[in-house]
């Protein structure tokens, strides 16, 4: 399958990309890893008259760790993040990076591209909304830093202007006694999840939940905070009953659509189960246990 013809522009800096986006107009698009854009263009679901390839910009894939923050260059590939020694400090990031689609797609797809695409089933949105995350953007007016919750506006829609690009994704490291988990259930490796749950919490002592964020993926127009589920646990003792109440609250927050991945009821049930398990794993990790978690699919 072939995409519509387009002109191809390779840039050496984000500043150059911004200028070209302005010159080439609304039908020009940025090409990062291309793992969403290229299939869409091939199926003629997306059309660009010009592509601005940012893959050759030097230094844009770096992952840095300083001042209590992890900074991911827009072109950091999912594999780079999976393999990064810095990511060990925040296990939920590894859960996410190591299970997105399959090896080949993780080798090519980027964190900046994933966030800018804002697919409601994307993994990074749900994962990063549980942490203090900001997106450093660059446009003709210079740079601005946008909190992730303000960055994602709607399905496939961000606040980025046409001539604006993601430069860096900045994640604040969680305090001590914190743990998190990202669980995504999918029918096979290469596909998007049917539903996903991301949980990040901080313990006070052994079993009091000091702070918690619960985010659900694939069950709304964007990844959604399950605030009522959080309220069931924040400031309270985490036991089986409290976790069950949180899972039920998450089920009610979810607004899934029935589609080929499953009925709305099925997805609600799935979300509740994933939230329950993610909380359990997050608690164990907060206590210092090493637990494997991530994407789940048949044959894994």
């Amino acid at each position, binding site marked *: *399958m072939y995409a519509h013809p387009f002109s191809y522009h390779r840039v050496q800096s984000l500043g150059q990309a911004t200028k070209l986006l302005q010159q080439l107009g609304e039908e020009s698009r940025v090409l990062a890893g291309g793992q969403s854009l290229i299939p869409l263009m*091939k199926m003629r679901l997306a059309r660009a008259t010009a592509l601005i390839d940012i*893959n050759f910009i030097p230094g844009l894939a770096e992952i840095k760790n300083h001042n209590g923050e992890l900074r991911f260059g827009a072109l950091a590939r999912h594999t780079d993040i999976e393999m990064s020694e810095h990511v060990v400090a925040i296990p939920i990031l590894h859960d996410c990076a190591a299970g997105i689609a399959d090896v080949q*797609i993780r*080798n*090519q797809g980027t964190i900046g591209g994933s966030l800018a695409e804002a697919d409601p089933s994307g993994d990074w949105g749900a994962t990063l909304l549980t942490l203090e995350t900001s997106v450093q953007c660059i446009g003709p007016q210079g740079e601005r830093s946008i909190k992730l919750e303000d960055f994602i506006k709607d399905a496939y829609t961000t606040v980025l202007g046409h001539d604006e690009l993601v430069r860096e994704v900045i994640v604040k490291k969680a305090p001590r006694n914190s743990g998190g988990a990202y669980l995504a259930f999918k029918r096979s490796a*290469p596909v998007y999840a049917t539903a996903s749950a991301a949980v990040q919490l901080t313990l006070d002592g052994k079993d009091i939940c000091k702070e918690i964020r619960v985010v659900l993926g694939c069950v709304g127009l964007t990844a959604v905070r399950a605030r009522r589920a959080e309220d069931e646990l924040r400031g309270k003792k985490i036991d089986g009953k409290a976790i069950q109440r949180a899972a039920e609250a998450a089920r009610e927050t979810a607004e899934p659509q029935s589609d080929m991945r499953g009925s709305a009821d099925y997805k609600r049930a799935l979300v509740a189960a994933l939230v329950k398990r993610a909380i359990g794993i997050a608690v164990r990790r907060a206590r210092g246990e090493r637990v494997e978690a991530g994407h789940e*699919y048949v*044959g894994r």
Partner: protein
Amino acid sequence: MSAAEKITVRIRVNGEPREAVVEPRTLLVDFLRENLNLTGTHIGCDTTYCGACTVLLNGRTVKSCTLFAPMADGGEITTVEGLTTNGELHPVQNAFAECHGLQCGYCTPGLLLSTVHLLKRNAQPTDKQIRKAIAGNTCRCTGYQNILKAIRMAASEMEKR
């Protein structure tokens, strides 16, 4: 530059510098098959799912149906044709032959490259790690058991060297 304008793409393929003048929308897999006549890389689903088009780009596996050829410009590619040396099969190819790790063979070039990529990073993978490493390669004949056997055998043969 207008949309119709072709560009020169230069890629080192299996150790040889190659180039062709193509439309920017040319997919890497079509560049390899049509422009360079390297038809060992297959097109299966053409929708980023099946992995039949898997090649190594700068040492990492990618689905060549999901890259425009200019994205690989200046890079190094290994296709299935590049696995043999002086007519000798690569140990991974040998293991697939020995263990009957294929039936129709359509998915095999992709699986071979995913295996080469895996064993370069992890010389002695567990079964779980093998399954994860080939999750992006679909085989509709074998049921995967013999593929797993082949990968285990390749790992132990390569370890002996």
